[in-house]
């Protein structure tokens, strides 16, 4: 019996170790590598495909436009599994083995605290998708963020719920670092707006049931539920809520507007309930303009590498990944070097607005202007990029409902409103 118990313990440890492997799609030796450093498996596996939806269209256009200083670019998946224990060795492996690595997209909030210092030490420019407020005043020179921080997300959710007239809310967030980083500003902003967070306890993810939690939440009589949990957890929780009590209005983060989340939850509670009760907040990125048109055209032409590419057409995160690759490529051309230690400083130079600068909306236009000796301001699919001294560039938020199988814009929270509540 003791042997069996020891065997079980050993087996569990081995199973955990077995989970440390990362995947790579591989890249040719001569191509410059852009690492897609995000979860492709695990609870946040939805993040990775969203990143692919931005990287592939960008690289496709860059390579079609003659590449960068004679080099082609390629996107290589590095699976962090959404866990620092897996992400750290994945980062170390990537830095050690990818000799032509010029930058990464990511890390996400799941693994950023553990890996941003590593990537920075390795002189790897990173266009992160972490929203952690810890990076609001980051001193890492290779850190770049063109998505809003989570604290901004919390402000936007609180403002939107306040606008709808809700005064009692339950916070249902996963116990992972990414989700929990949304909570402090959500609570403080909603309270400052006169509301009360009546329930706020982290959820263990992927449980077989959340009925007890639902009983506890209902006992506090919330009018709305703020949430960020993974698709499986959300499906179980919301379907049980619907069955046991009936739905309540739900305001989710941008994670809840990702295709896997929408598909899973719609399957669990039904399309009519989704359309009626659910709204998600995401960075405002209008699906219009020349930069977006170029992105979308390339995205839709990338179906051999991006499954169901149209699902990312209006995804603001996919757009910012696309922009991140373009910015790095243009910075290399401006710096006349593919060495990150050299071109990293040019990232601000190709994005900052300025008198006499040529505004470009595509890599090809930017490359042409730079070759003509002009200074450029790249305005991306996600809009203008204006970095502050800590390499953060944020904007407004939009609220979307899930109607007829697509997220549809129903309103927005302006950058000025967010700035006012965040003071």
């Amino acid at each position, binding site marked *: 019996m003791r042997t069996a118990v020891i065997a079980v313990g050993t087996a569990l440890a081995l199973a955990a170790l077995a989970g440390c492997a990362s995947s790579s799609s591989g890249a040719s030796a001569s191509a410059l590598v852009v690492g897609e450093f995000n979860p492709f498996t695990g609870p946040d596996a939805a993040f990775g495909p969203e990143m692919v939806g931005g990287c592939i269209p960008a690289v496709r256009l860059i390579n079609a436009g003659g590449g960068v200083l004679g080099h082609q670019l390629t996107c290589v998946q590095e699976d962090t599994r959404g866990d620092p224990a897996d992400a750290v060795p994945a980062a170390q492996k990537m830095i050690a083995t990818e000799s032509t690595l010029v930058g990464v997209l990511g890390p996400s909030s799941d693994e950023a605290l553990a890996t941003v210092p590593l990537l920075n030490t390795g002189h790897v420019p990173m266009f992160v998708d972490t929203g952690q407020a810890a990076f609001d005043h980051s001193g890492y020179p290779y850190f770049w963020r063109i998505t809003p921080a989570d604290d901004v997300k919390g402000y936007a959710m609180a403002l939107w719920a306040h606008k709808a007239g809700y005064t009692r809310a339950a916070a249902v967030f996963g116990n992972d670092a990414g989700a929990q980083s949304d909570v402090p500003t959500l609570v403080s902003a909603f309270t400052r707006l006169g509301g009360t967070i009546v329930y706020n306890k982290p959820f*263990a993810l992927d449980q077989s049931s959340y009925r007890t*939690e639902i009983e506890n939440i209902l006992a506090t009589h919330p009018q709305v539920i703020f949430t960020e949990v993974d698709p499986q957890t959300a*499906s179980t929780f919301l379907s049980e809520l619907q069955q046991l009590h009936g739905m309540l209005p739900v305001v989710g983060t941008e994670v809840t507007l990702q295709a896997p989340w929408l598909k899973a939850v719609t399957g669990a509670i039904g399309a009519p309930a989704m359309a009626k009760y659910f709204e998600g907040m995401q960075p405002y990125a209008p699906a219009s303009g020349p930069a977006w048109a170029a992105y979308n055209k390339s995205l839709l032409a990338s179906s051999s590498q991006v499954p169901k590419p149209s699902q990312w057409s209006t995804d603001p995160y996919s757009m910012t990944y696309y922009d991140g690759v373009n910015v790095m490529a243009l910075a290399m051309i401006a710096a006349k070097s593919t060495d990150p230690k050299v071109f990293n400083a040019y990232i601000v130079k190709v994005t900052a607005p300025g008198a006499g600068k040529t505004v470009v909306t595509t890599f090809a236009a930017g490359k042409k202007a730079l070759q003509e000796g002009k200074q450029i301001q790249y305005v991306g699919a996600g809009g203008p990029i204006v970095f502050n001294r800590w390499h953060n560039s944020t904007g407004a938020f939009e609220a979307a409902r899930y109607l007829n199988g697509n997220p549809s814009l129903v309103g927005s929270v302006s950058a000025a409103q967010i700035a006012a509540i965040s003071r």
Partner: protein
Amino acid sequence: MTASTLLAAVGFGIVTASILAVAGVGFTLQFGVTNILNLAYGDIMTASAFVAYLVTNAGLSVWLALVAGAAFGSAFSVLLNRFIYTPFVRHGTRLFGMIIVSIAVSLILQNALLAIFGANFFSLQMPRPSSVHIAGMVFTTVQLAIIAIALAAMLLIHLLLRYSKLGKAMRATATDPELARNCGIATDRVIDLTWALSGALCGLAGVVLVMNVTAFTDTTGSQFLIPIVAVAVLGGIGQPYGAMLGALVIGITSEVAAAVFSPQYKDVVAFVILVIVLLARPQGILSEVATRKEVAA
């Protein structure tokens, strides 16, 4: 914390325990008779859930999907033992080596499901359940069905082990395979039937799990493996009755912990109890009782 909230947590714990019991009994039964710690168990649950998904997607009923899932789990487990595990055992691979083999099978199966179905979330097509009020608690028809399925499965296992020749042969094989063989028991056949039976429970558990969670992916079953192993260890490895009791303890404790403390401590409290019990009784709750009464598998 009101008494009604606590009562509700206990009621909800019974639903969780029902799923854990079906999975845990299958897991521990198979280990008790074959001495192979099959860590691919959770992935076979997932594969069975996908079979059920295909059945319901074809417009057939969820009841048929349950049968199909159990049949797949049973057949797959028998084949897995015949063509993967048994050859390793014949070549002298010991317990720890077999654990590595089962982890390999787990990873292969998980990645095969990922390759076939993709990194997406799936739901069984079934009628939306209605709510039923029982003793101050609210259950859905699906949850009541899960409890009924678990009770029926446990009763059948009990009858099989206590009163059938196969049950006696399984107990004999588990106790001393060599002696059982010398007594004329066809142990190879018994082992095959054990894999078939535990595989059926595994498949059934996979389907009821995804009926309950409503959305699943290629890793849903493997995420459930740790509580299943905990149930088996708590009850005494190889003890089906212990697994039933272990499922009740883990299921109810985790729900009560969510009600009393915080949802994030659901697993933690259950595993603290597991550690405490194992410190006091390393052989599990029912091991000695089972041996004394000859009800061990």
